[in-house]
């Protein structure tokens, strides 16, 4: 019925997730870290949708909608934080933000 199986989606999702994770771990720019987080989220979404299709159930798709909604809200909050941090210190290098060091 469907020429493409589930595996390619999962592999793509894995690649995207790894890219996002590496971005989060290695980038210094807060916005880029943020974007990487979004990438990871969407990788997860892709995996969910793929498995939902595999099993023919709608749960995974519904779950994806929730994840997107929450992600949108999170972006709004996160960007606001970043803007404020920038105003405060003229930098969004996350390595500069280490006041909480023990």
């Amino acid at each position, binding site marked *: 019925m469907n020429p493409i199986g589930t595996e390619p989606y999962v592999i793509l999702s894995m690649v995207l997730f790894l890219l996002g*994770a590496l971005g*989060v*771990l290695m980038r210094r720019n807060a916005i880029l870290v943020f974007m990487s987080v979004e990438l990871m989220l969407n990788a997860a979404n892709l995996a969910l949708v793929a498995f939902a299709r595999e099993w023919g159930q709608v749960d995974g798709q519904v779950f994806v909608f929730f994840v997107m909604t929450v992600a949108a809200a999170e972006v709004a909050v996160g960007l606001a934080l970043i803007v404020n941090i920038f105003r405060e210190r003229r930098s969004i290098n*996350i*390595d500069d*933000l280490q006041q*909480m*060091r*023990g």
Partner: protein
Amino acid sequence: MENLPLLVPLVIFAPALGAAINFFFGARLEEKWSGYVGCFASLFSFVISLLLLTYVTGANGAAAVVNPPFFDGWLRIESVGLDISWQQRVDSLSVTMMLVVTGVGSLIHLYARGYMHGDKAYPRFFAYLNMFLAFMLTLVTANNFLMLFVGWEGVGLCSFLLIGFWWDKKAPEGWKNSNAARKAFVVNRIGDFGLLMAMFLIFWTFGTLDFYKAGELPNTEAKYLVKWREHNGLLAHVEDKDEEAKDSGQAKEYKCAPATAEAHDDHADAKSDANPLASDIRALHCDNSRFENDMLGVFGQTSARFGQGETVDFGGFQMAFDDVIVLIALFMLLGVTGKSAQIPLFVWLPDAMAGPTPVSALIHAATMVTAGVFILVRSNVMLWELNHGGYVIGLVITLVGAGTALMAGYIALGQWDIKRVLAYSTISQLGFMVAAVGIGAYVAAMFHLVTHAVFKALLFLGSGSVIHGVEHGHHHAREHDRHGHGDDHAEHHDDEEFDPQDMRNMGGLRRRMPITYLTYLVGTLALAGIFPFAGFWSKDEILADAWHEGFELNELSGFIAFGVLLAAAAFTAFYMWRQIVLVFFDKPRSEAARQAPESNGAMLIPLLILAFFSLFIGFINVPKATPLFDGIYHAYEFKYFLEHSLVSVSRGHSLDFNILIAGVALALGIVSIMAAHRVYKGKGLASDNRDQLEAGGASAPLFRLANARLYWDEIYSALIEQPFNRLSRFLADRVDWDFLHDYFHDSLIKRGFDTIGELLSRPFDLGIVDGAVNGLGIVVARAAEWMRRSQTGYVRFYAVALFIGVVAVILLMIMPFIQIMLQSGA
């Protein structure tokens, strides 16, 4: 009418409220208003007492027992069966006392408004006076010994406060006042110990402290009761019932209904029973034999159990019931000697004259000091049983009373202080009452109590008026002197020496103070027992009863009482006339007396009222067959009134007027007065301000002995006070300071403590305890120092940590699958 006894709590409440108002708000009230509050409270109680009198006379003498609201179960410890309620008793005896206390008390309140005018502690004075009334009325309306004791101690407290009322005067005077107050308190404490012991014995023996239980009849033989029963056909009725009861063997079926007037009774109850106190009347036709012993009060049990050969178990030992009653009576007598100023505890009363004169009149003459006589009369059942059981307790009481009467009368002959003469006179008259109780003449004792309260209050208030006048005269004289000769230092020094109470500074006041003089004369004649003044009747009744007891019944106590009291009565007339002559007759002996003004109306009106009653109060108990009085007035009115409360009255004697005794007593009084007149009139003082008796050779040592008050104080000082002081000094210096403080405390305890403390503090506390606690702290600090390095502050570090953690968790979760894969692969 039947509900009238329910008013009796107000009798106490009104003066208590007055005291509270004057105490808490007195400073903000005007002098006038705090006086009004005090007088109103007192008069209110008097009116209630009159209403209660109408009840008692209207109810055929039936006593009412009232439980005031809020006081239910006043003292109740269920586990030991102790249940003492705050019960007030309205019977003829308590109503008599209430009328005396509130009647004389009200007049003295009115008088005090004038006497205390301008005193800076005016509201405090009225607060104390009202408080005294409240406690005194608690005492006389009590239906149990504990409540009586509350009043007893309360009046003692008020007496203390009022004797020392002027404690804040300048140095010697203030000390004298506060010492007198303390003396009164301490001496009374000895008496209170006696009363307390009597109460303990009573509770142990009878299991109750109630005088009579509700519904119990004190005197089933009272004349009016018998008449009333005959009239209503109840006597026969009762006998019928008795027969029935005996036949059926169920005597308890006809038990008397309790005649309690419960204050919190609702009206429904009252309606169903037309007369809520009718149970009292119903009680009339049952006698107390229908009660079980343990349902009776103290006195009912006494008459039921006395002479039955019972024993009382005191745990360690046993004692015959009759002997316990003797002990109770003796301990009670000790209490009486304290409060009623008898030998050997009378020494506080003369010193108590340091208080303001209205206080001396109210507390130390008319009311509080009669509490002892009252408690003896209240306990007449015990004394009656003892006297008729062959015990000599009556003789002991007679000896105490008659001895006191004679001794105090003799001392009064040699006193110079106008109030001290009256104080010794009071002691002497209280001796008359106690002696009357001793010979079993309880009505005579109460009668003398009533008349004495009236005329002695009159005399004290009169002496207050005299002192007031002389004090004012002294101020006048000093002013005059200043204007005349300028300020003379020698004269000024003399001022402070001037004693306005010393009769040597008086004389000739008859013209300056005519109304005071006339009323004082009435009081003197009443006290001296001159016909027809009040004292004549009451003293004559005591003497007649003593005569009867001694010469007709051959009782030793009667002989002693008759002889000694007759002599004391002669002394009474002599010292009172000496006082009249020294104060009012002849020429003034000081400038102060020459210029003394008459007192104002506030003080004179009570004097006039009291003088009126001193003349007429004696008619309440005129003996039978008295010439002039026979037929125009009821004979023995007071006696028949009291017989409902006193068991012994109807069993005792009811004597006709004995013209011989009355004549002898009257003649003796008149002779004494004439003798005093001859000695003092027109002569004033002998040389060196000495008394005429002191100047005359033969009588000089006698006078000096009386003047020195028979050295009672000195004897007590040598016998009790000085050994006591030596003992306490020894205990303080040697035992407490040298031994306990220096040796035991400092050497033993302190050094031992120091050693142990040293041991505990350094090695143990500092070493082990502190080491453990500090060590723990150091370990924690080191660990934290090491662990804090993990917190770098780099976001990426946390992210890596998180990532590694997630990977680890995932690996852990898929480990089984990996194992399966590996196995299958292998």
